[in-house]
């Protein structure tokens, strides 16, 4: 097929990619505000570390593993587009909408970066920084890239669905399985292997800067327009559907989270509002173009209530998922992925791939629901096993955990040699020598 450039779509995708890119620094603020002041720089550096490392991996071999020629349904050929060199635009992932190869590859880069960064919320305040970088590199290579290939690259959880004759193919518009279930399970496994923060459940570990959290959540919402609308690969009515669904599901989840809090704790909190925003964004991600407005409202409502309840699970089960990657991303990702099975529809500017079907409440029967549940479970098992192997290997070799002294004094000062606030460092102490 001869490639024909569509400058409108291309401009849209470059802009959408830039919006998604912004989500990782936004996440740094969202997470950074939630940790204690003595380790905020370390928290933000985990996101910035992912920006550096995963971007490089993506152009070297990442894109090829995710979107190269299929090898057995699990990965793409890593040598197809080494260094993103030598490809022609008719090989573009978005050739069908007239978007050149490099634009499509750049757009997808930003998804890999944020997914790795999401995991860092589960391991706040206690992980060795070097081990985080090594983990992020290995995890992207062995968990993210294969899952992205399986779901989006024509592998066996997407277009190459191995149960295709029995069931409809899975729907994951913008990353419910690849991004959120994947990162959520990885966060859970890594938090368990790493162990709890010292004093977890006994000492106060309150968010040190809630305005940072609000700022981060707002920027995430803004960036998410690129994430979801951009996943249409074209500037059209379906992109508009994704934009509207993204907004309405998030708005409803915000209200649902603070409503749940008001009933349970007596207060509608700013942290709850910011958390509800992210829960809604996560849940609508896989469904962004595949449901109508009523479906988006329902997904936002269920996600807001369930995630608000799910963040309490870590105290009951005793794992220290510090910033609730499980409660928000895993649970939100599951809500969206599974509810597609009830609400999927292809009318009124909605869209899902050929081979998928309407949901249970839209006359499509239970087939799509079954597919969505199966793909969610398979994604969890895959991500859990790969993460467990990487985490155990690193724990046994270079070690995962910062020393007790580093953790108690704060990773900012002991690992990075700086402090976020004057009151914590040289500004408030007697400086004996300035070189």
């Amino acid at each position, binding site marked *: 097929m001869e490639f024909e450039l569509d400058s409108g779509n291309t401009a849209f995708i470059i802009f959408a990619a830039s919006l998604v890119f912004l989500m990782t620094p936004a996440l740094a603020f969202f997470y950074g505000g939630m940790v204690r002041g003595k380790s905020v720089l370390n928290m933000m550096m985990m996101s910035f570390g992912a920006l550096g490392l995963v971007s490089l991996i993506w152009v070297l071999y990442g894109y090829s593993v995710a979107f190269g020629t299929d090898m057995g349904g699990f990965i793409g050929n890593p040598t197809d587009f080494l260094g993103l060199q030598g490809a022609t635009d008719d090989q573009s992932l978005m050739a069908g909408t007239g978007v050149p190869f490099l634009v499509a590859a750049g757009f997808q880069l930003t998804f890999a970066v944020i997914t790795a960064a999401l995991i860092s919320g589960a391991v706040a305040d206690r992980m060795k920084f070097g081990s985080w970088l090594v983990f992020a590199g290995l995890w992207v290579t062995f968990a993210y890239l294969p899952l992205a290939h399986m779901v989006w690259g024509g592998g066996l959880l997407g277009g190459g669905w191995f149960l295709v004759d029995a069931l409809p193919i899975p729907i994951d518009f913008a990353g419910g399985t690849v991004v959120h279930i994947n990162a959520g399970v990885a966060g859970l496994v890594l938090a368990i292997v790493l162990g709890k923060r010292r004093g977890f459940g006994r000492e106060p570990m*309150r*968010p040190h800067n809630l305005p940072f959290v609000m700022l981060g959540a707002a920027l995430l919402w803004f960036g998410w327009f690129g994430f979801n609308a951009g996943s249409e690969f074209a500037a059209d009515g379906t992109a508009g559907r994704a934009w509207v669904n993204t907004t309405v599901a998030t708005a409803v989840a915000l209200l649902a989270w603070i409503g749940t809090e008001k009933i349970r704790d007596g207060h509608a909190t700013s*942290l709850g509002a910011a958390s509800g925003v992210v829960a809604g964004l996560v849940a609508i991600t896989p469904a962004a173009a595949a449901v109508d407005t009523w479906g988006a409202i329902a997904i936002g409502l269920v996600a807001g209530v369930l995630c608000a309840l799910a*963040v*309490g699970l870590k*105290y009951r089960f005793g794992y220290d998922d510090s910033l609730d990657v499980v409660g928000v991303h895993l649970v939100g990702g599951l809500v969206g992925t599974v509810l597609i099975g009830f609400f999927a529809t292809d009318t009124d500017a909605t869209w899902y791939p050929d081979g998928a079907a309407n949901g249970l409440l839209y006359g499509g029967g239970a087939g799509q629901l079954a597919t969505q549940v199966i793909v969610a479970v398979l994604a969890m098992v895959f991500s859990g096993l790969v993460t467990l192997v990487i985490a155990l290997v690193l724990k046994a070799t270079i070690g995962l955990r910062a020393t007790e002294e580093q953790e108690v004094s704060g990773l900012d000062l002991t690992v990075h040699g700086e402090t976020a606030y004057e009151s914590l460092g040289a500004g408030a102490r007697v400086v004996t020598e300035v070189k």
Partner: protein
Amino acid sequence: MTKLVTAVIQPHRLDDVKSALEAAGVRGLTVSEASGYGRQRGHTEVYRGAEYTVDLVPKVKIDVLVADGDAAAVTEVILRAAQTGKIGDGKVWVVPVEDVARVRTGEHGDDAL
């Protein structure tokens, strides 16, 4: 003899107490930030459902050195200015001081006030 009047009050009453003391002729005082609790106890904060109980609440402590005969009047001035009528308004107490000296001049006793 000199008396030390100490008051632990709500921080937001400090300005009023300070003005009232000035108007009553008190020429110097020491203010420090303090924390503690009486019958008010503390408060609770909730972050994603995790409850933190804060037992110690912020207070302001005022120390005023006065001549023996002025102690009762100064205590009354502070009481009136600091009072809101709600739990947590604080306490005022008076203790005798053996000696006071002004560092600049070396004066002792009431001359140093």
